[in-house]
Every structure is written in C-alpha cells, then in structure tokens.
C-alpha cells in the first residue's frame, strides 16, 4: 500500500497527540499526586446512620497534627454539618454519605466533587492552604428542593480554630 507523504505527517501527528494526552494524565497522577475518588469504603445501612459512629453525629474530627476527617451526611435538602469548619493549612479527608437518595457533593469552583450514594461512603482527601469560604452544592437531582440544597466549607485561620463544632 502506498501512503502519500502528507498522510504520513498527519497520521504521526494524531498518534503523538494521543501519546501526549495519556502522558499528561499520567504526569498529573504521579508528579502532581492527583487521585481518584475512592469507593473502597465498606457499605453501610443508610437507614441506620443514627447508629453509625461516624455519621450519627456529622462532624469534623482531628486525627493528626494537621490532619482532619470530616463526616458529612447529605439529605433532602441539606448537608450536615453546615458549615463544615476546618483550619487553614490542614489536610482533610471527607467521608460523605446519604441517608435518603442520591446526592452530589461539589465544593464549588474546585475539583472536589463526588456523588453521594445511600449506603456508600464517598471518600476523598484535599488540602486547605488558605483561610476562606467555599460553597457546597448538590449536583444530582434529588427532589423538589434540589435547587436549594447547599452547604459550605469554612476554612478558618489556624489559630482561630476551635474544633469545628457548631
């Protein structure tokens, strides 16, 4: 088979583009440490969150020097706790579950965005470097109050942090 020289050029370019796409994603995953939302948590009973030691009382808990865990419950039509209070300069692992239907948990304007499925615990870790406030919204249609379902993450200066309890 004879291939025209120009065709060779754009075949090679197309291959290069694919290789470049794959290698940038690999670069993000290795050098930048970008990870996936984990689903390897045990499943739980969404009707018995009251008896679950993590979700009976949705809260932020300190687990290390600058490490925190946030246990968040999504329900029609709110997030608990609200606001989710964490100190600046911390690494926070979110555990998010639903007690009724499928919701979303999106920290607005950021890459922190998970589906919240009843019975499943969506887990992800992020770093909060500076004080500030983020909105949180539900991005999975969950009922007639879906459009008002919102929460917030408040990042307070480290020295002002009081444990995050309301």
């Amino acid at each position: 088979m004879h291939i025209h020289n120009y065709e060779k050029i754009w075949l090679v370019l197309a291959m290069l583009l694919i290789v470049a796409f794959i290698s940038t994603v690999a670069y993000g995953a290795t050098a930048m440490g970008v990870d996936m939302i984990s689903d390897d948590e045990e499943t739980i009973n969404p009707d018995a969150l009251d008896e679950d030691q993590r979700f009976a009382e949705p809260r932020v808990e300190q687990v290390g020097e600058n490490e925190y865990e946030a246990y968040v419950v999504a329900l029609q039509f709110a997030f608990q706790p609200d606001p989710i209070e964490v100190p600046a300069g911390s690494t926070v692992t979110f555990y998010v579950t639903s007690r009724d239907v499928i919701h979303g948990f999106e920290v607005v304007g950021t890459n922190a965005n998970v589906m919240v499925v009843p019975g499943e615990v969506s887990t992800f870790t992020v770093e909060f470097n500076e004080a500030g406030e983020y909105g949180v919204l539900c991005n999975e249609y969950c009922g007639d109050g879906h459009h008002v379902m919102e929460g917030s993450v408040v990042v307070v200066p480290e020295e002002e942090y009081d444990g995050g309890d309301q």
Partner: protein
Amino acid sequence: MSTETAKKEIDHEDFDPKGTLALILLYFVILAILWIFMYFIEFLGNDLTVIG
C-alpha cells in the same frame, strides 16, 4: 476540430494537498493549545485537588 480537452495524467505522489495539510496543522495547534489550557491551567490550577 477536436472536442477533447487537454488531459494530464498525474501520479499518486504528484499532487500535494497543501491546503488540507495547512488546515490539519492548524487544527493540531489549536487542539494542543486547548489541551494545555484545559489540563494545566483549568484543572491543575483549580485549587482543592483531590489527592487521596
């Protein structure tokens, strides 16, 4: 009087579609720029990257 117009046979390699090549190169450059913008600036530059 002949009604036949002049005909020239050309070989596979004799015609170079320069316009097509230029278009494809332009698309390629646009794609590469958009990819760099989308991944490195919009995605990696967006704070709160999931790290675990």
